[in-house]
């Protein structure tokens, strides 16, 4: 149950191609609106896609490891709901953060344990927890909305770090990107994640603790998504049960745009950062032109298709040239291998 071999060069080309795409989007933005590269706009750009960008980082590691987490937006919503609910009951912000952290860990742990201990397919499990955690958000907040957050926190949506044009979420994204980048590219755990995504069996035979690492990845995802939920709530100055609804597919899209293979074992953080820039840039450029910014989903979808066809074409060409030996190709199930 494996995908056909892909020429490794194709992926390197993908990141380079993505740089060109980002530049092209930049050019498009500038040509359609003089405001595109202004500091103010960069700030807005960072704000808009900040949460998605942040959630894309642990998602990248999870997809590289061969799994998927569709509950990200619901964990975000759950943390947002808890924030509003507890704030309304006059808890201290510090205590609230602690609770949200614990809940994020639990949510991720439940995902991780169901997938690694019960060996259930992550696609199905996280569709289930998508509902479950969104449900918790619904139950906690009900139809209520909480908006009276203190100005110092709600400031997140208004001004940037040290009053520059770098939004808080943008700054957090950069810091996290560096951390995740270092982890996946420069640590033993990172190498192990690539190995288990490319070949779970060989990873086990090399002494890698696949189950433990995967569970950790889901827990990290839970924590990061909870953080994203807090950021979203402060940015919108609103805690409502529908916060973040539907964002999970955007997060997956950004990761795939970044050149991460849905089959696992391949992808880079640099690529995902570029994917974030492409995704956010497109939306922003269209926003400025008064074109319906939501139609940005068309080029996003197009890029996704390109991202998945290019390596296959390159591999086919490589095989024809005899460069790459043919391996058995079946119709792989791309997310996790379940246990059959």
């Amino acid at each position, binding site marked *: 149950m494996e995908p056909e071999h892909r020429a490794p060069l194709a992926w390197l080309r993908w990141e380079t191609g993505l740089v060109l795409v980002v530049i092209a989007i930049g050019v498009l933005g500038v040509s359609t609106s003089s405001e595109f590269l202004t500091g103010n706009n960069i700030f807005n750009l960072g704000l808009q896609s900040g949460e998605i960008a942040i959630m894309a980082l642990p998602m990248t590691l999870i997809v590289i490891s061969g799994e998927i987490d569709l509950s990200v937006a619901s964990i975000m919503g759950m943390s947002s709901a808890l924030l509003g609910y507890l704030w309304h009951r006059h808890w201290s912000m510090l205590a609230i953060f602690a609770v949200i952290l614990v809940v994020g860990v639990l949510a991720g742990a439940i995902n991780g344990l169901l997938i690694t201990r019960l060996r259930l397919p992550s696609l199905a499990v996280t569709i289930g927890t998508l509902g479950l955690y969104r449900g918790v958000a619904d139950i906690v907040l009900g139809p209520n909305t909480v908006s009276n957050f203190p100005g110092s926190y709600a400031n997140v949506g208004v001004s940037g770090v040290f009053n520059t044009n770098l939004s808080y979420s943008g700054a957090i994204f950069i810091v996290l990107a560096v951390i995740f980048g270092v982890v996946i590219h420069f640590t033993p755990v990172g190498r192990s994640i690539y190995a288990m995504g490319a*070949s779970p069996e*060989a990873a086990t035979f090399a*002494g890698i603790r696949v189950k433990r690492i995967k569970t950790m990845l889901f827990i990290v995802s839970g924590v990061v998504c909870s953080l994203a939920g807090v950021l979203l709530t402060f940015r919108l100055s609103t805690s409502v049960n529908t916060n973040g609804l539907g964002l999970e597919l955007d997060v997956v899209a950004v990761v795939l745009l970044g050149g991460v293979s849905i089959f696992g074992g391949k992808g880079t953080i640099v690529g995902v950062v570029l994917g974030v820039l492409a995704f956010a840039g497109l939306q922003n450029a269209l926003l400025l032109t008064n074109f319906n910014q939501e139609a940005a989903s068309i080029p996003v979808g197009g890029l996704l298709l390109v991202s998945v066809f290019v390596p296959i074409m390159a591999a086919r060409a490589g095989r024809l040239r005899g460069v790459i*030996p043919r391996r058995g190709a079946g119709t792989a199930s791309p997310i996790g291998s379940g246990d059959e």
Partner: protein
Amino acid sequence: MNPGPSAASSGGLEPGASSGGATPPADPAPQPAAPQPAAPQPADPPRVPLLSLSHAAKSFGAVHALVDASIDLYGGEVHGLVGENGAGKSTLVKILAGVHRPDGGWLAVNGDPIMLHSPAAARDAGIAVIYQEPTLFPDLTAAENIFMGRQPLRPGRRIDSRQMRAQARALFDELGVRLDPGRICRGLSIADQQIIEIAKALSLQARVIIMDEPTAALSAAEVARLFDVTATLRASGAAVLFISHRLEEVFEICQRVTVMRDGSQVLTSKLDGLTADDLVRAMVGRNLEERTVGQASAPGDQVLQVQRLTREGVFTDISFDVRAGEIVALSGLVGAGRSEVARAIFGIDSYDAGAVTVHGRPLHRSSPTSAMAAGVGFVPEDRRQQGLVMDMSVQQNMALASLNRLRHLGLITGKSEHDFAADWALKLRIKFGRLTDPVFQLSGGNQQKVVLAKWLGRNPSLLIVDEPTRGIDVATKAEVHRLLTQLARDGVAILMISSELPEVLRVGDRILVMREGRLVAEYARSEASEEKIMSAATGQLQGQAR
């Protein structure tokens, strides 16, 4: 089976001769293999074989799987095919099945030459293969599996399930088995799956049925049932090719046998008058090559101790030890349970009873981490699925088991991996393009060296290698053997699993033989021989009737 006298006189058996016909004067010394076509038996009327392969040759790169192999399959007869690992049996089967095309030689069906371009062509020609591990559609019923794509129809092109079940039942009746055609195939025993495959072959009007090691995973009762089915097939006039390592089965079910060795058939004969020893000698007889690569110094302290290791249904009561500087070879037939024992020692698989200690300290069950921490390395049997991450680079693969040791300030860089890998690539003389190339681009021999480097990089005190030279060219094979003996000289304890007798005898200081999940024999190198090992492995030793 008569324990008759060997060689020399009437019905005598030198490699290459067939019994019954005019025999050349007996030559007591073993001859190098001389492939000869089967001589016709004077008592039988001339028949056209249903399927015949003549002078087939097939090479994969530097590996010559078949040199000059011929076999004739007659209707109404079960023809046994025996030979060691690497003798060319599976390549021959794949040619008959249409999976490979021979580089030389030709195939004929009913006397007419034919070219099989694909498995589908083989199917159309009436050839069916039952593999050791059949792959059915586990979510569909037995009847659907048999008739998928050819289900009987009612008017309006609707599947007639009742008719389909009835036809399936009829097939099962014809085979003399009782299986429920409506049964979902998930969870079916391998034995039952094989029966379904046979039924499918019958429904496809197969006249030639090839069974590739069918009994390896079967219980005694299931084997008995399979033999009844085979007898039925034979009675219906089909030709059956029965490949097996278990000689007593060959004697029970076959009328004719072909022995292969080193890519050619060395013996084809009716089974009457043959003994198991004759077969063993034919399988194994060869110029005894240089026996040892170097001699081991006196072995040191005990490194590995396995005590009464048991896993229900897989292996029972396994006890042995391996000392520093010693190479213990674990031989036996495919399916004897050797790899399972090795995996249990290393912690990949679990076990039900017994204990494993390394340097006197017990290893935790099911914990590769514990084994690795104790200094154990494991080169697995399946290089492509278990030994290497094919998509990762050479250097990353080599570094994969040493990640924590290559850390500097918690980080690993490409450079640290590169230096580590370059170092080992030099030591093991690995040929590659660049260390950053994906490992699937390397040849089999070099890939195996990468796996070895991965574990050697950890300086193990116990190295377990499972089939270290499988699928590797001769030159690299010799290198690997030299490496292993050098390691032993340096004090590493080595447990080597191998199905290749020459390798076992060249490299092993002590040879253990497993059969059907138990340790049945132990030999020091000085007293061991291929015949002894093979006999123990197939149960031919006195007092070891099946």
